[in-house]
């Protein structure tokens, strides 16, 4: 997913002179072709995220579309003030490409695990947050980032994530994508957990339970109409994400559903709702992304069992 994303930054730069790339201190060889062919628009500025984000804002104020890439934790935590003020207050087209969303960097520990990136960025006015499910979806997203207004955070997965999307569903920033229909339950997911939701739905179908899956690659702005439409057709709603249960997709969906329950006459108030995600802890083991996902039960088996329990 990261490779596809950066390859596409190169492609976009080749065809659009507004495009500028800034890295912090990325792996040797990153975007070598970009650097060789368009050196004046390629920047590698060292371990200085606050400066990098401010500098990107300056370039964007002058008409550039700036893509920044570094590890998601450093890109969101370290320079939060710069993101809020330099990017969002000025409303400039800077794309923050966060490597290792969620627990991708499990072996490196909590300093590198982006478990609250969506939560903190979601609270900032004007910020757009996207989390594609796989490299193919990234390929559909990236051309749209060129002219989309304002700042955007692009959450990357591990790389080599299984391909679960296809061209049948055209991508649009801000649109939720129905990946599977079903009248018994709705599983809402974002990023790489789409795969888990689809697996769980297939498993549930064997028991005669039809679970719909709504993929939300744009967490902000949230596609509220699509969410309410799909949630309104089923008795139970479940969210799945590789992110803290506080402030991420689960919270965003809960906010929408809770308000709809209170204010919409057509909304059944007894709708049951659950979140699957990283609990309110710092991951306390190393291992791998997969092993931590298992530890926190962000897995297809848990999704299926929770849906069964909610329907029981």
């Amino acid at each position: 997913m990261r490779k596809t994303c950066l390859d596409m930054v190169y492609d976009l730069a080749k065809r659009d002179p507004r495009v500028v790339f800034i890295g912090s201190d990325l792996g040797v060889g990153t975007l070598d072709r970009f650097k060789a062919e368009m050196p004046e628009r390629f920047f590698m500025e060292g371990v200085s995220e606050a400066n990098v984000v401010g500098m990107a804002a300056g370039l964007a104020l002058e008409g550039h579309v700036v893509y920044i890439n570094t590890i998601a934790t450093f890109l969101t935590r370290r320079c939060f003030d710069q993101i809020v003020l330099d990017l969002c207050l000025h409303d400039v087209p800077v794309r923050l490409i966060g490597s290792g969303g969620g627990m991708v960097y499990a072996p490196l520990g909590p300093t590198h695990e982006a478990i609250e990136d969506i939560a903190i960025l979601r609270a900032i006015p004007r910020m757009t947050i996207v989390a594609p499910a796989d490299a193919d979806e990234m390929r559909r997203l990236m051309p749209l980032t060129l002219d989309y207004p304002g700042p955007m955070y692009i959450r990357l997965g591990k790389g080599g994530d299984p391909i679960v999307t296809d061209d049948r569903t055209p991508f649009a920033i801000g649109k939720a994508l129905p990946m599977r229909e079903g009248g018994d339950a709705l599983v809402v997911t974002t990023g790489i957990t789409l795969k888990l939701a689809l697996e769980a739905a297939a498993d549930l179908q064997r028991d005669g339970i039809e679970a719909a899956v709504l993929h939300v690659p744009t967490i902000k702005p949230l596609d509220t109409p699509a969410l309410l439409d799909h949630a309104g057709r089923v008795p139970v709603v479940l969210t799945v994400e590789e992110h803290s249960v506080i402030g991420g997709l689960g919270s965003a969906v809960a906010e929408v559903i809770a308000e709809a329950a209170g204010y919409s006459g057509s909304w059944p108030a007894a709708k049951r709702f659950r979140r699957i995600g990283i609990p309110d802890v710092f991951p306390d083991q190393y291992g791998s992304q997969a092993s931590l996902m298992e530890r926190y039960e962000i897995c297809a088996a848990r999704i299926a069992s929770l849906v069964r329990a909610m329907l029981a």
Partner: protein
Amino acid sequence: MITNPPPTKRVPTNTTPLDRRSRELRRQIVHTLAAGNRGHVASAFSVVEILRVLYDSVLRFDAKNPTWPQRDRCILSKGHGCLALYAVLVDKGFFPAEELNKFCKPDGILGGHPEYGKVPGVEASTGSLGHGLPIGIGLALAARLRRRPAPTSGPLPLISAPGAPQRVFVVCGDGECDEGSVWEAALCAAKHRLSNLAVLIDYNKQQSYGTTWEVLDLDPLADKWRAFGFAVAEVDGHSVAQLQAVLARVPLGPDRPTAIICHTIKGKGVDYVENNLNWHHKNRASKEEIESLLAALETE
């Protein structure tokens, strides 16, 4: 130029007389302070001559067309000094003086820190310290990209702008230099040899809680900027002549960004405000206090 910087770790003094224009700009600041019932008045008095000389003698701009692409860019990174900037921008015709009466009011465009997109002539929203210089680097790099000749193949540059690139001036506070992002940016500006970027430091040696050497010592400040790769000069930041002379020579070194340490007095112009931290930010100045300030700045 100041060849022997004033001794530090001693409350600074500056006896440079203020001419009529400098006193008028300060009176405008006092009127705005009164209108908003608040304001960083001493911080504004400190930076008046720096901004005045920039806008009078240095910057290329068109007040009637504030986004003119060929303009030089100026960022007041110490955003809390905005009362001085507002006075200068009004004087230059960026917006009418009546706006000053709505300082910090719900229907005004002028807040306690300057905002991009609201105030004509303001290039960046500042107020959180340590943001102006990184943004200024982006502006300076963009100016350099615009200057590049059209390539024989591949995409055309964004905006064709022959001639010297637009220059970027960033005015920083001294307390602001406590921020790590200032020094990240200093490394970056030197790396890119941004000769079209100049940072002016309003070095009044007073921050909010106390003197800079009590809170977080910056000295030797000029040596620090020099060591970071800047061409550096030190001037009396209240001497219009010295500021004009040094700014006429910018860039001060070839292929290097410029840093100008402006030795100033917080509250300069009214003796009981000078070096008086109770005036760093003034709330609810009484009618008598406002009249006293205006009298001290009498232009006749």
